[in-house]
């Protein structure tokens, strides 16, 4: 089940809200959420829902054993086994095919590549489980002695299949005791609708542009058979610009919906995106983009004593290798991660003081260029296509600057592209900040927010009726 679906919004979610607010006690509310969350996951994964339940059970018992054997070697052995289990699950389901293909390529063998289907959201819920078990071991959180409550944390449907990666410590107290205030429900509803609009209006609209600019022409269009090497410079560059915007709106839209729904239930998840395209450097970009993933690697991988300060560069390499690899079992994602890691290293070597001396406008342009090219690496999973992409950017394939069909494609969505670029900047927070000083203006803003929410909900409903397949990009991770 996807959030951007009429059935989800008007049947599943509505039934969930009605059931949730029909019961009084937190225990009953938690039961409602567990039932709906497992139903949500089983909707798309009728078999692998068992994997989710078993994985949670293994980590539940691991947590109890860690607590029982605290400060002994047995606790260390337990956490080691738990981590091997969790990472092993991920490796088997997500990376077996990749490993076998590369072994075949390296050794010239012909081991048959197993066709293992990736359970939806495994990268997200595995990392969530690991955050619980590691924090348990480090004593940062109390062990959860109730299996249903741990299952609630892992299976909670708002963030189960596409993040954000919610730390157990973030909602530890709210699992046991929480309230949904009028502010929570109101802001949660608005946040959900904004997220839905980001996905349905912007992400889906931008995807069509990306498909036309970067995909292979064919069929009905008037410039048949153009391969990637024949694309114009503008088609190539604007294609990845639109792709970067598409990924932002798709993923941040989902995060907004997840955070909004969580808020309605009384959970307060951390932000996952903070206007990343306004970054002045790449280090800042990764503090604003997919924050939950970056902070996971920072907290659990980068500062692990195993590496120590003497292996600073090795741990940096490992973090960015893992960041890329987490996104997909393909070399372009590894290159993508190391690409950003390289720029972060360069910025560290330049130093913060020297970076601050560079005019902000220039640093913004630098950051945007690096980010856009980065999304080109993200887009082209085939390394040959990736090479062609770079060649197109320097006209090495005899590319035209722009073609008529490219102009038509861009013109056809020009208002959407401009609106997407402008709204990706922190304009609304700026307006909110100014409004905070004027109580009467806040009144008007509140009514406008309601009117906009209603308008967006109606527009999204109309657009969703087309029933085109519009899964979230990050579902594949």
């Amino acid at each position, binding site marked *: 089940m996807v959030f951007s679906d009429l059935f989800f919004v008007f049947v599943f979610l509505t039934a969930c809200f009605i059931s949730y607010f029909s019961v009084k006690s937190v225990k009953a509310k938690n039961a409602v959420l567990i039932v709906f969350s497992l139903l949500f996951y089983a909707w798309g994964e009728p078999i692998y829902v068992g994997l989710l339940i078993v994985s949670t059970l293994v980590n539940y018992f691991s947590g109890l054993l860690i607590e029982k054997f605290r400060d002994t070697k047995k606790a260390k052995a337990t956490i080691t086994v738990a981590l091997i289990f969790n990472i092993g699950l991920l490796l088997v389901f997500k990376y077996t095919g990749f490993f076998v293909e590369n072994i075949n390529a390296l050794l010239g063998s012909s081991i048959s590549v197993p066709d293992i289907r990736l359970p939806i959201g495994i990268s997200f819920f595995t990392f969530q489980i690991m955050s619980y078990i590691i924090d348990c071991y480090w004593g940062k959180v109390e062990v959860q002695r109730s299996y249903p409550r741990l299952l609630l944390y892992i299976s909670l449907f708002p963030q189960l299949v596409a993040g954000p990666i919610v730390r157990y410590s973030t909602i530890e107290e709210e699992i046991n005791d929480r309230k949904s205030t009028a502010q929570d429900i109101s802001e949660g*509803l608005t946040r959900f609708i904004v997220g839905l609009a980001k996905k349905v209006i912007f992400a889906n609209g931008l995807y069509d542009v990306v498909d036309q600019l970067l995909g292979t022409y064919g069929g009905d269009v008037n410039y048949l058979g153009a391969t990637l090497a024949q694309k114009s410079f503008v088609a190539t560059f604007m294609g990845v610009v639109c792709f970067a915007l598409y990924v932002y709106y798709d993923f941040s839209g989902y995060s907004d919906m997840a955070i909004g729904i969580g808020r309605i239930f009384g959970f307060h998840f951390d932000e996952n995106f903070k206007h990343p395209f306004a970054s002045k450097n790449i280090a800042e970009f990764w503090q604003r983009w997919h924050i939950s993933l970056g902070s996971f690697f920072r907290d659990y991988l980068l500062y692990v004593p195993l590496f120590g300060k003497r292996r600073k560069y090795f741990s940096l390499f490992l973090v960015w290798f893992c960041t890329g690899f987490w996104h997909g079992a393909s070399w372009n994602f590894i290159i993508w991660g190391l690409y950003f890691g390289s720029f972060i290293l360069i910025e560290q070597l330049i130093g913060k003081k020297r970076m601050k001396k560079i005019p902000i406008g220039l640093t913004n342009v630098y950051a945007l260029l690096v980010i856009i090219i980065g999304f080109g690496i993200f887009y082209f999973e085939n390394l040959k296509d990736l090479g062609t992409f770079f060649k197109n950017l320097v006209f090495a394939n005899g590319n035209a600057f722009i073609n008529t069909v490219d102009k038509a494609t861009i013109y056809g969505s020009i208002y959407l592209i401009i609106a997407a670029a402008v709204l990706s900047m922190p304009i609304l927070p700026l307006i909110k900040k100014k409004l905070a000083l004027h109580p009467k203006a806040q009144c008007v803003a509140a009514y406008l927010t309601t009117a906009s929410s209603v308008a967006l909900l109606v527009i999204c409903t109309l657009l969703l009726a087309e029933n085109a397949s519009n899964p979230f990009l990050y579902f594949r991770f």
Partner: protein
Amino acid sequence: MSKFYKINIITIAAVTAIIIGCMAFFPRSSGISKTETRHLATFPEFSFESYFEGEYTEGISKWFSDTIPERELILDIASNIRELYGTDYIAKNEKGEDVEINTDNVQEGIDDERPDGNVSDPLA
């Protein structure tokens, strides 16, 4: 501000209820979609095989979207909304006449194929 929170909640809930009411009580669409030239989905038949392969639940979601009341009208409105995303690009063909380039359609007066593999703009 608490007054506004309640107004927001009630308004959104009311609009949602109206939409659900329309979906529940108006006759559902069925048969052939003229806009999309295909049969609209029907409610899937249950079988354990189709359930465990995910086809059954996917079929329910598809059926729900496919059979919303007045679907053709809604698709028409949706199409009009998407036209607001941009504007048409007008170019000139070899005869110097205005040609509207629509990336969805084949255009008259423009070569469909480029036999010489030339990457230059056919309308340049």
